């Protein structure tokens, strides 16, 4: 089991190194859509107007008004679920639009992966799809959820 875990960690680590980013068409269209609806998502004071939900199972990640919109370039490995982990893929996304919270207890439901270097990826607490977000152990006051990788309602 320990060996397995190490293998898993390494695989994700490798994906980070092999960050040959390929934005597929679908995702860039999501981004442009995101851009136009930003005013629907972000309040005047920079908070999330809507609940942040898992795209796959609808599990609630954040309540409205609990996170701050933040732009920061972060690399996230591709979304996957545990049934078909795409650990061998070297692709992923550089994402810049995030919901930022400074305390993990702000989340309604969220999962944290094991450490990948100094990074813990955020996943859906219920269906475990992810990564939906990013946390660096060197900054315990920053938890990012990628706007593109969650639903808003």
């Amino acid at each position, binding site marked *: *089991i*320990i060996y*397995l*875990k190490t293998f*898993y960690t390494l695989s994700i680590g490798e994906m980070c190194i092999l960050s040959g980013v390929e934005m597929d068409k679908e995702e860039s269209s999501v981004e442009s859509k995101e*851009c*136009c609806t*930003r*005013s629907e998502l*972000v*309040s*005047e*004071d*920079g*908070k999330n107007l809507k609940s942040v939900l898992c795209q796959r*199972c609808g*599990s*609630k990640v954040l*309540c*409205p*008004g*609990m996170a*701050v*919109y*933040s*732009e*920061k370039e972060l690399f996230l490995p591709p979304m996957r679920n*545990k*049934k078909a982990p795409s650990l061998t893929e070297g692709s992923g996304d550089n994402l810049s639009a995030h919901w*930022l*919270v*400074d*305390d*993990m*207890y*702000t*989340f*309604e*439901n*969220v*999962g*944290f*992966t*094991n*450490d990948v270097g100094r990074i*813990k990826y955020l*996943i859906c*607490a*219920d*269906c*475990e799809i992810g990564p939906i977000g990013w*946390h660096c*152990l060197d900054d*315990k*006051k*920053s938890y990012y959820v990628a706007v593109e990788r969650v639903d808003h309602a």
Partner: protein
Amino acid sequence: MDPRYDRQRRAGGGGSSNSSPALGSQSRRRKIPPRPADFKLQIIIIGSRGVGKTSLMERFTDDTFCEACKSTVGVDFKIKTVDLRGKKIRLQIWDTAGQERFNSITSAYYRGAKGIVLVYDITKQETFEDLPKWMKMIDKYASEEAELLLVGNKLDCETDRIVTKQQAERFASRISGMRFCEASAKDNFNVDEIFLKLVDDILSKMPLEMPSRELSNSILSLQPEPEVPPELPPPRMRCC
């Protein structure tokens, strides 16, 4: 910390443990203000390999039970929120899957736990026979106040049952304060009840005035470092 902090905060209807200054005004504008957590509790799930610890954790709030999922890779812990007795409770749930060798689970897991779910498989005698070894770890490392719940999992495999309910009841009755139930993560039988019951027991033991700030100190932090003030980037208005 001011012990009344959390209650004041609730009465005020704004703010959260982030203490973000902008949040108060945001809350007042909203019809239903975002409610911060009233309590934060750490729960660990332990038990021998393959008894279904991870499945129990997943079944707790969702319906994506996956027949194929074998053993856990990757997930460290989860934050889950439950509403109970009109309180919003954030659970930090540590699934120890992958660390089943008794000595490999660090004492830190046990130390902060307010609730411990000890799981065995009703179809596998050895997982039941392992229980005293797990109890030894609990006795050694866990807080005496920690609520204990023994769970006989895989009730959906009743035809393959090896461990009788009476055997397990007898085991649990010898340990003071230990509750027992059988469950099926696969059929979602008793799973929500397990956690709700455990949380309910934890809450009922708690003095009402106990501030969640104080409680949160018992929770494992990702990095045991001194508190640093949050550095939030300036909020963005819109991009286009």
